[in-house]
């Protein structure tokens, strides 16, 4: 087939320009910046300046630890919940399906700031509806903002509420692509619904589950708004500080671009590792 270089690039040029300037070049640039001392004028090439500081910085390890802790707990809980939502929403027995779908999918359109504000108010120590409800069934109030464990739990609850339905939408689309006759054959063979779930649904859904998990991990890894607004700048005392928040503080409060770029590339390294695991997990068996 003949080439149509001129025509093709006329269509591509505007997008490619933006894509190069605001995506491809920054990816390279931030890698280079991470090897420079950026608080001197002009910036100075200093390969170990930021990275050396990073590996000895307790604040970095605190943020890394918090981020990984949220990842390890929140993502599996949320994905499991999303699978349950998707499977049940897909059930032919369900009545008023539209209402249930609205309930689970609605958080997808809610902005981070709006829902952070609501969660902050709902979990308020003395006047929050959550503690009032706990008290009304005889349980003590929880100080969600002054202690690390409840504060971390609150962040995880908030993120799960916001994103479970999003994952359920993707999983539901995957479920609907599984042909009905697979289940019909299994039902004829008297395979129980539970067994059908574990031996048909889950294996066929595996690539989509892995896809959702990777998206969620990469999203949660950059968690910023929730600890910024709900637990107020990663409080209490850095207890919910994440890598995203550390990057913000270093880059945009202290204007330490070199160090912040090293933090950013740590996230990129994690993302690349996770993407490679995804490729390996979803590799077609030979």
């Amino acid at each position: 087939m003949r080439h149509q270089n001129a025509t093709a690039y006329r269509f591509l040029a505007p997008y490619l320009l933006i894509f190069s300037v605001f995506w491809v070049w920054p990816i390279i640039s931030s890698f280079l910046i991470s090897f420079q001392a950026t608080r001197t004028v002009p910036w100075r090439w200093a390969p170990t300046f930021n990275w050396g500081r990073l590996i000895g910085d307790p604040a970095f390890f605190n943020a890394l630890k918090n981020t990984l802790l949220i990842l390890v707990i929140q993502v599996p809980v949320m994905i499991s919940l999303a699978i349950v939502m998707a499977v049940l929403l897909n059930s032919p027995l369900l009545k008023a399906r539209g209402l249930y779908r609205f309930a689970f999918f609605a958080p997808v359109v809610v902005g981070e700031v709006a829902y952070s504000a609501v969660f902050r108010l709902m979990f308020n120590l003395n006047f929050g509806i959550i503690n009032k409800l706990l008290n009304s069934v005889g349980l003590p109030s929880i100080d969600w903002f002054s202690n690390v464990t409840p504060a971390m739990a609150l962040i995880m609850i908030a993120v799960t509420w916001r994103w479970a339905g999003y994952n359920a939408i993707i999983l539901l689309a995957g479920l609907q692509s599984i042909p009905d006759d697979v289940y019909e054959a299994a039902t004829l063979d008297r395979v129980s619904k539970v067994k059908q779930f574990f031996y048909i649904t889950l294996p066929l859904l595996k690539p989509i589950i892995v896809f959702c998990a990777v998206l969620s991990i990469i999203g949660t890894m950059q968690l910023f708004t929730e600890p910024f607004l709900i637990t107020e700048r990663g409080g209490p005392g850095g207890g919910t500080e994440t890598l995203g928040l550390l990057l913000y503080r270093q880059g945009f409060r202290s204007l330490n671009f070199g160090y912040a770029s090293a933090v950013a590339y740590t996230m990129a390294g994690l993302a690349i590792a996770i993407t490679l695991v995804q490729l390996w997990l979803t590799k077609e068996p030979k």
Partner: protein
Amino acid sequence: MSSRSQARLGRSIALHLFLTPLALIWLFPLWMMVVFSTMPDNGIFSPGIELLPHDNFIDNVNNLQRDTNFVGAIGISVSVAVTYTFLSVLLTSMAGWALARYNFVGKGVVVAIILGTITLPYAVVLIPQFIMVARDFQLANTWVALIVPPLFNSLGVLFMRQAFSMMPGDLFDAARVEGVKEWRIFLFVALPLARPMLAALAIILFLASWNNYLWPLLINSQPGAMTAPVALGTLIGLTKVSWGGIMAGAVMLTVPMLVVFVLLQRHFIAGIAAGAIK
């Protein structure tokens, strides 16, 4: 009743008994947002349990407007989201069209770079973008700063490439035989055929721009240049601020999107299911 339909009924009841409380829990924060937005501050911070809306919404809106120019911020947010959505749909569908329907030198490289970098975290480009826009181009606190950098998003390119490559090529060839120019084929044959995909893409992009927080927070931090989420975010954590007002702002940000979601659910779900928003 046969034992089979009895079992079916039992399963159906169990399903609803499980799913209904879960759905109510999921709706609860949204419901409370609406309730809070209609309560005076001394009602929000009182020991009683209030689960029904009051009638203080207008006062709360006024309180919010006193704390920050929220109406102005909404105006910026709407204009930015509309412009961004239009430009992004246009640019990415042009690129998607080129990748789907032409053979050209470098096509493989372009696709490889897009796919190879799509899972990189946005955080990686944040600092260079900020340095470029704020320092090199001196564009902080402008509309251009809010609209142009986020146009790099490649979701639309992949989405529209997919859409255009599924269309029958004969259709376009027929137009070419007639001597119709390529850009006319794109505008008047391909784009109209892709209308459902364009709608799905536009909704997702509009929502992403409307809710975008981190970039506008960094680049447009001056009061008169803030978007609505940023303006609202500055109030959270302040001591002398009307929380009823903040909730009224949250409602104004959220409820229009919920209405759009209900009206255009099919497009919404198609857009999300086709890939990630990010």
